[in-house]
């Protein structure tokens, strides 16, 4: 019972971590917090893949001269190496977008930015109305 629980314990916690990351992305209004949520989600997916690749009593996949060595699965390791580097690239891109938004709106909260957009939209409508009335006169 205990060994079977430990056998899938990793999966449970990894799924909970994924949900924490997802909640940070969809539940919080701060853009920096959203990017942190993406990072958390990514790292938990990495853990899931590496957990799949583990073999009990295996060694890291580096060749040695012993005959009956069991190597852990190298393929998930390769995929995750690629994913880590791509993850940092996406983080950098997201952060530069946040910086751009901050310099344009002066805020990185989703509510404030949509409120500012709404105000701009109403201003545009009013100015167009004024122009119309001028033409009519």
């Amino acid at each position, binding site marked *: 019972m205990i060994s079977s629980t430990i056998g899938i314990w990793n999966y449970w916690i990894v799924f909970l971590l994924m949900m*924490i990351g997802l909640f940070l992305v969809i*539940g919080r209004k701060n853009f920096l917090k959203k990017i942190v949520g993406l990072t958390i989600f990514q790292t938990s997916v990495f853990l899931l893949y*590496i957990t799949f690749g583990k073999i009990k009593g295996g060694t890291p996949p580096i060749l040695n001269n012993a005959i009956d060595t069991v190597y852990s699965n190298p393929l998930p390791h390769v995929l995750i190496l690629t994913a880590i580097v791509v993850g940092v690239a996406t983080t950098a891109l997201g952060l530069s977008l946040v910086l751009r938004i901050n310099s344009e709106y002066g805020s990185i909260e989703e509510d404030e930015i949509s409120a500012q957009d709404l105000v701009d939209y109403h201003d545009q409508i009013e100015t167009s109305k004024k122009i119309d009335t001028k033409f009519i006169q």
Partner: protein
Amino acid sequence: MISELIINAFLVTVMLAIGIALLRTRTLIFTVVLTSAYSLVAALMFITLDAVDVAFTEASVGAGISTILFLAAMAYLPKEEEENINSQTLPALTCILLGGILIWCSYDLPEIGLLSSPVHQHIVPDYILGSRDDIGIPNIVTSVLASYRGYDTFGETIVVFTAGVAVLVLLKNNTQTSKQKNKNSKRKVS
């Protein structure tokens, strides 16, 4: 063998604690530092799961470079997160539902560390047996990364290049518009 799994279970629980702390904090600098700690514990877990290459990449790139990027961005951003006005029940419900479904499905996943699980059956034995003769590097991860699956790495390089170009374009525009804004405001004043 069972001790490895117990260490694993402990470390992954530490990661869960860091995740819960992340949900509770409102100061952005704490968030960044907690993310760095999270990556470091993840690197420890990768060592116990036999993925040494992934561990040192995660420790240097995940915990090092991305923390530096976050701190550099923090210098230009507000320091506190504002309180949410809207309710968070709908996102929380979505997450709880999805997490429940995933945990329910986890009973069908193979247990950790079984040699008979499907991941280990397909092409990997060929890589392990052929690596010494085909490529001649003792590290199998390197030979798969650079030779057997070299196209994947090529695609990764393209992605990183594209992201770098995009970041440069965004930040260049950023400085230009702020200069233009300054000019405009000066004109208005004069």
